[in-house]
């Protein structure tokens, strides 16, 4: 069944969700040919491996505080030295990579869900719903993520959920706002019109036609957001409304040592370096995904013709 597979709209293709994913796979494979692609995939890969390993093994136990050796310099047992409680810097950074990975993944999932829900409402055929939601998104997008987090932190206290919800809502709104023009264009395209005329339901059109065609925009936007989530986690934790005390995260490692930057600069450099590397890698990944996607799309067309 593919009423509209020969539709005239070249930019937006009807149907073909699986084709989108194969195209994504091909884009990722092509990325590996460039230095930037190798770098970003290597960093992200390392991050995931370290995060998983830290669930089972860290060089030192996280609770191995030793007040007599607080801030001590790197040694064979403590490769990056110790923090202000005498705990091993490297172990905390490794364990922090798991927390950050969880936060990034859950935030992206939440942002995608919120974004899709909002897009669905905005392309809805019920004029009232789409109008109100569009205006609401435009208004809500002006509220900074930090403010949402601050408001959430008052009743719930500092927690990982606050970071995820604040960022998820913020980036979900962003995603909806950015994807809306394209979504509206697709919703009005001929193949959607013909599907409607064949009696397709709104849900069917959304899942079968609109979302697959929005996939490239959404993936690029979400991968760029992923980098921002890492930064937001560090920032919110530094403000005391992010990851709670006792839970390892990069932001926490930064927040506890940044007060002593003048005396123990290296203890700030390590978590700072990790955050920088990962954010650069995620942003680069997003950029490449966008670049390759367009080229990839063209080549796909060529392949088809």
């Amino acid at each position, binding site marked *: 069944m593919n009423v509209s597979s020969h539709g005239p709209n070249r930019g937006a293709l009807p149907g073909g969700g699986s084709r989108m994913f194969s195209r994504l796979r091909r884009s990722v494979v092509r990325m590996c040919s460039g230095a930037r692609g190798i770098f970003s995939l290597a960093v992200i890969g390392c991050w995931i491996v370290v995060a998983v390993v830290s669930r089972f093994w860290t060089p030192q136990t996280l*609770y191995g505080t030793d007040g*007599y050796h*607080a801030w001590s310099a790197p040694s064979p047992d403590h490769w990056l030295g110790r923090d202000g*409680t*005498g705990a091993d810097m490297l172990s905390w950074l490794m364990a922090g990579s798991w927390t950050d990975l969880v936060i990034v993944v859950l935030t992206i999932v939440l942002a995608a869900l919120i974004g899709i829900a909002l897009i669905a409402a905005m392309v809805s055929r019920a004029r009232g719903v789409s109008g109100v939601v569009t205006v609401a998104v435009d208004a809500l997008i002006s509220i900074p993520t930090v403010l949402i987090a601050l408001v959430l932190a008052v009743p719930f206290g500092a927690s990982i959920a606050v970071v995820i919800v604040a960022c998820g809502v913020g980036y979900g709104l962003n995603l909806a706002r950015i994807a809306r023009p394209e979504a509206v264009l697709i919703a009005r395209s001929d193949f959607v019109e013909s599907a409607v005329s064949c009696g397709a339901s709104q849900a069917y059109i959304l899942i079968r036609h609109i979302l697959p065609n929005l996939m490239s925009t959404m993936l690029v936007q979400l991968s760029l957001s992923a980098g921002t989530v890492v930064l937001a986690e560090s920032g919110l934790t530094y403000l005391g409304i992010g990851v709670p*005390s006792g839970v390892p995260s990069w932001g926490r490692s930064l927040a506890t040592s940044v*007060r002593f930057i003048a005396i123990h600069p290296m203890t700030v450099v390590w978590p700072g370096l990790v955050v920088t590397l990962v954010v650069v890698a995620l942003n680069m990944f997003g950029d490449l995904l966008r670049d390759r996607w367009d080229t990839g799309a063209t080549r796909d067309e060529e392949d088809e013709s």
Partner: protein
Amino acid sequence: MPEYRGVHGSSGATEDRRRRGRAKRALPDASLDDALNERIRPMRVAGRSGWWGLLAAVIAIGVVVGIAAPWRGSANSGPGLIGAAHRMSIGLKLAPGNLDIRTQSGAALDQILIGNVYEGLVARDGENKVVPGLAESWDSSPDGLVYTFRLHRGMRFSNGHALHADDVAWSINELRARGYQDSEQLEDVSSVTAPDAATVRIALKAPYASLLWVLTGRPGLVFDRRAHYDRATQAVGSGPYTITRYVPNSVITLQADDRYWGARKARTARIDVRYFADDTAAVNALRSGDVQVLAPLTQSLAQPFVDDPAQYEVKVGEGTDKFVLAFNGTGAATSDLRVRQAIRYAIDRRQLIASRGGADAPLGGPIPSLDPGYEDLTGLYPHDPAKAKRLMAETGHDRAHPLRLTLTYAHIYGSELGDQLRSQLRPIGIDLHVEVVEFATWLQDVYTNHDYDLSLVDHNESHDFYLWADPDYYFGYDNPTVQRLYRQASRASNPQDNARILAQAARIVSRDAPADWLFNYRITTATVKGVQGFPVNLNQTLLPLADVTYTPGKE
């Protein structure tokens, strides 16, 4: 009667252990610090005439000395030492909300105003002992119910008004009648009268051992009832300084009152007190010469200054700050004495102190060394993990089946203490969940609603043993013997009995383990070389600056 030492006695100093054998003090006729001088007289430098340039050439040491010459001249005519700077800056941390010491709470106000701008009937020295203030001497009736103070002669306020006994009586009566800050400390006073111009008599309803100490604080301050000024932004008192500039949360400028009545006039003509909420900014200010003194700073932040003894001095002063890890006396798990004792045995306080830089002192009970009733109680609960494990095992908990407790404290104390406590309690079978919250949340949950297992607060007040005699306080500690002893101590007619009974009560409190006293926080003060007379003990509540001088050293 103690010898008259001026309105505020000098503070003793404990020199930093790592820096004994101080380098020779800069010579009085040393040339002045060029950077400082540059900052102070930029206009003069800019508008310098040829004469000054010639002078600089003649002296041939450089512009530095050329600038120094006129400046030293003016310093000589001032009240300071020969060669001492006319002006200096000190950096503090917490700024007062406004200058109205009658209605605005906060130790920052006591710190800047008491002994500098306002003076009390009596004063306190650096050992927290009562010394003469406006009163040169006093005595009390044998039953401890009437105190008679004899005032100095010829006292005056900075606006020229004379200060007599009726000003003292008016000030104290006004405080009691209007319920100004700390007026509850004078609940036992029945009347304050001025039988003649140089005598003040305070009558009590019942003996009150802490009366004199209380009068060194806000309740004893004397105000000019004929002066009209905006109390929130100005201050008119009888002290050695007047306030010439007040920028909220930023700067307070103290100007020496040349006509100060007392013998102990201010030795530095002008002191700019600057407030730094941010530690890094404070450290940078000291390093760049914007301030010559910084107090307090943490030991870790002080390390670069300790390592540079040629330019800086770092001293550690005694204080009355007690870091209290309170156990909720009415909590489900913490009402069990064995749990509380186990926690006390499990905590390695020396390690906590070491991680903070080693300046703080161990404290085994509710009374710090500068308060009456102090005894070394650190031996009651030594660090003994084996004993802690046994006690927890009796309650049915071990490492595999831990007891879950929550520690709630304000983020201002940093996350390190919570992390360390969690690590230290884990082996004995306590899974400590640490919640670092906003101070307002702590106030709401712990202080008001008593909804907590463990809490950590720096109780910084002096003479605050009464907290342990109040069963409704957030500690939830209710021991009738301690309450009886406390009443007895406050009714003691002489300080020795008072201290003896308090010590007895403090020992009982510590043994009952309603809390663990992690350490007695000691205040670290860093100064550039050449600063003399800056109080280091108790300087977060009591900072008489009359003796401070700064003699810039030879670079």
